[in-house]
């Protein structure tokens, strides 16, 4: 087995991982950084983010507003001290990446421009046309090339963490090009592996979004927090799930049902607005918009398309071709290429699709997990800023703010600890190698693609936009069954070089763990909050938010060969006590009342 000795190991080369690597390199150039990623960094899923990154920019905005939008948007399940830190750092980090070359779109005076986004009181979303994630990722990747202390392990697939003396001290990875194992020793490890939305069927997500880091931490006893909160993005391409950014609505797009009616006015988001108005109508939060779709469907007011199924229309015709091409070029191209629709001439059929994992590896405000030396950042982590529903454009900023913070923290820690016991680590690494190789050589009867298909279907059935005890129970049972059947898989490919079937099997193994944490966290949360909405309970009790019993984070703990154990942790409240979560005119009134009470 190859052995490489680093100081800081970062698993995942997306926005968060790259930002952390740069932070380590800048804070202490003598530290050796190993950046391990199963794809070349610029393929990471950050690349698909479209709309933008939130950070206070305009003089009429304030950190206070960004804080309240985020906490309210998260239905008060946010760690408020962490949100305070986040909103404060956001403009700093967004400016820094501008200095590194990120081509943020500009206003006519040459300053960075901002656009409106759902659930945000003032426009504060920095954007690079509708390819913000792409530009952030490429800027970070290209900037990272400047630092010789960053050694990249591109197309290395991480299969285990190494733990010694109660500290995380390394990782084991497969070099995909050869199928051989490498042990990387390090004093600290940062997980930046992204979300897990691929456990669902119709999603906006790339094939690599399989929750690898979540499962790795989970199996090492770290809690997965708030996993029941999965974000449905309201405007996705039917069947493929590809994303039509919220910026479509931020720039003025309408959502209409089969009668051409802007139905959102019926769901507490009105009254009707002609121009985009922050926190009204189409600029409501994602959970509410996806839920409104579901209700429209129940009422039979969605459009029944012969191929796409139930859809509503995203209508941007009134914005005109020139404006759309300037502000939303990727969206324009996607509509044309994938659907044969010219959005300046015809409305786009859309429906909700899985988009984001609000929960993740439980970390403290400094991004450290309960396993010393192990940090987690970005979508794989639950640092506590998204609560029960993430606001669009907070997550790109999160990558930068917490990537930087974790990088600084991990570097400081790495300077102060001694190297581990190599011999003992190697033994663990060899055990991991044996276990993972065994997966390849199994001679069962199950195809992994079949298990995957059943998993994603079951997650969609049980853990969709609205949830019921009975269907969630069926999903939990199904996942337990699939866990058993996974033991009986057989692969067509038993070779070493570039064996993606084998890697897919390891991913499926991760996904099943993560899916179980989601389904079991969901069934235990007997209330409705943010993206977790139930239709059941005695007298419909679970259809309401229940702050008495559930103003708590769920925490799923790994139990070998069994369903996870679900525990609960406190929510940190600093300055925003839970209140009714309202938008549109009602939201404006609530804001006014809050301000009055402060005076």
């Amino acid at each position: 087995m190859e052995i490489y000795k680093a100081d800081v190991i970062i698993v995942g080369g997306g926005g968060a991982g790259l930002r952390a690597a740069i932070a380590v390199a800048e804070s202490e150039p003598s530290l050796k950084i190993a950046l391990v990623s199963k794809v070349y960094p610029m393929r990471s899923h950050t690349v698909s983010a479209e709309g933008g990154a939130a950070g206070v920019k305009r003089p009429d905005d304030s950190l206070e507003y960004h804080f309240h939008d985020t906490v309210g948007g998260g239905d008060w399940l946010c760690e408020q001290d962490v949100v305070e830190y986040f909103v404060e750092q956001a403009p700093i980090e967004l400016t820094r990446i501008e200095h590194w070359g990120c081509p943020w779109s500009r206003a006519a005076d040459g300053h960075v421009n901002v656009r409106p986004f759902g659930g945000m009181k003032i426009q504060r979303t920095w954007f690079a046309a509708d390819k913000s994630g792409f530009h952030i990722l490429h800027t970070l990747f290209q900037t990272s090339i400047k630092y010789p202390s960053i050694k990249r392990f591109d197309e290395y697939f991480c299969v285990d963490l190494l733990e010694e003396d109660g500290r995380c001290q390394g990782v084991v990875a497969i070099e995909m090009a050869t199928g051989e194992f490498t042990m990387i020793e390090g004093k600290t490890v940062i997980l930046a592996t992204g979300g897990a939305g691929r456990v669902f069927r119709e999603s906006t997500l790339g094939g690599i979004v399989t929750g690898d880091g979540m499962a790795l931490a989970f199996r090492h006893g770290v809690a997965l927090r708030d996993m029941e909160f999965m974000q449905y993005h309201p405007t996705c391409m039917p069947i493929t799930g590809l994303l039509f950014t919220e910026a479509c609505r931020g720039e003025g797009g309408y959502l209409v049902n089969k009668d051409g009616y802007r139905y959102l006015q019926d769901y507490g988001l009105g009254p009707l607005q002609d121009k985009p108005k922050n926190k009204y109508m189409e600029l409501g939060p994602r959970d509410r918009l996806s839920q409104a779709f579901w209700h429209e469907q129940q009422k039979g007011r969605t459009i029944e398309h012969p191929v796409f199924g139930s859809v509503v229309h995203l209508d941007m015709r009134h914005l005109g071709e020139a404006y759309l091409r300037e502000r939303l070029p990727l969206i324009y191209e996607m509509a044309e290429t994938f659907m044969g629709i010219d959005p300046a001439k015809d409305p786009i059929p859309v429906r909700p699709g899985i988009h984001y994992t609000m929960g993740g590896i439980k970390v403290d405000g400094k991004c450290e997990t309960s396993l010393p030396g192990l940090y987690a950042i970005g979508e794989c982590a639950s640092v506590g800023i998204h609560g029960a529903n993430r606001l669009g454009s907070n997550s790109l900023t999160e990558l930068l703010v917490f990537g930087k913070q974790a990088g600084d923290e991990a570097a400081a820690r790495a300077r102060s600890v001694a190297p581990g016991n190599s011999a003992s680590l190697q033994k663990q690494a060899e055990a991991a190698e044996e276990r993972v190789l065994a997966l390849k050589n199994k001679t069962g009867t199950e195809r992994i693609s079949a298990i995957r298909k059943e998993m994603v279907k079951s997650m969609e059935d049980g853990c969709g936009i609205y949830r019921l005890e009975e269907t969630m129970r069926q999903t939990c049972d199904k996942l337990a069954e699939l866990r058993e059947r996974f033991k009986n898989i057989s692969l067509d490919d038993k070779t070493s070089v570039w064996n993606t079937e084998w890697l897919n099997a390891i991913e499926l193994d991760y996904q099943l763990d993560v899916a179980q944490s989601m389904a079991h966290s969901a069934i235990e949360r007997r209330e409705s909050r943010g993206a977790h909405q139930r239709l059941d309970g005695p007298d419909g009790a679970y259809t309401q938010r229940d702050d008495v019993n559930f103003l708590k984070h769920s925490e799923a703990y790994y139990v070998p060969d069994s369903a996870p154990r679900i525990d609960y942790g406190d929510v940190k409240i600093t300055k925003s006590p839970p209140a009714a979560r309202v938008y549109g005119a009602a939201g404006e009134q609530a804001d006014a009342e809050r301000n009055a009470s402060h005076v």
Partner: protein
Amino acid sequence: MSKRRPYVRSKSGWWKKDPYYVEYMVHESTALFVAAYAIVLTIGTVCLAAGEAAWNGYLEAMKSPLSIIFHLILLAAIVYHAFTWFKLFPLTTPPVVLGGKKLEPELIVRGGWVVAVGVAVVSFVIVWGLA
């Protein structure tokens, strides 16, 4: 021991594998015809310098049917070369931004033709006038 065994495909005959490459090779080879015509003109200049007899001999040779056929072939090849060369014009000119919008490649190609045809006509008129 790594089991990697990257396979490198042969490049032989690469230019026949795509119409784009074929056009490129034809374009490049028509440059030889441009060179051939330059040689013809050079010979003419040499003959002119050598005196009236040589010059008249050169003019006579130019009038032979073989020479006319040869010149027609040259003309066809050079027009093709010019056509494909102008097609590549936008590739080789720095982006021209007018009023915040990039100039369309089509316009650059057309601009090239306008200049070329213009120069040809002006030269022709001058030569005709002199003759």
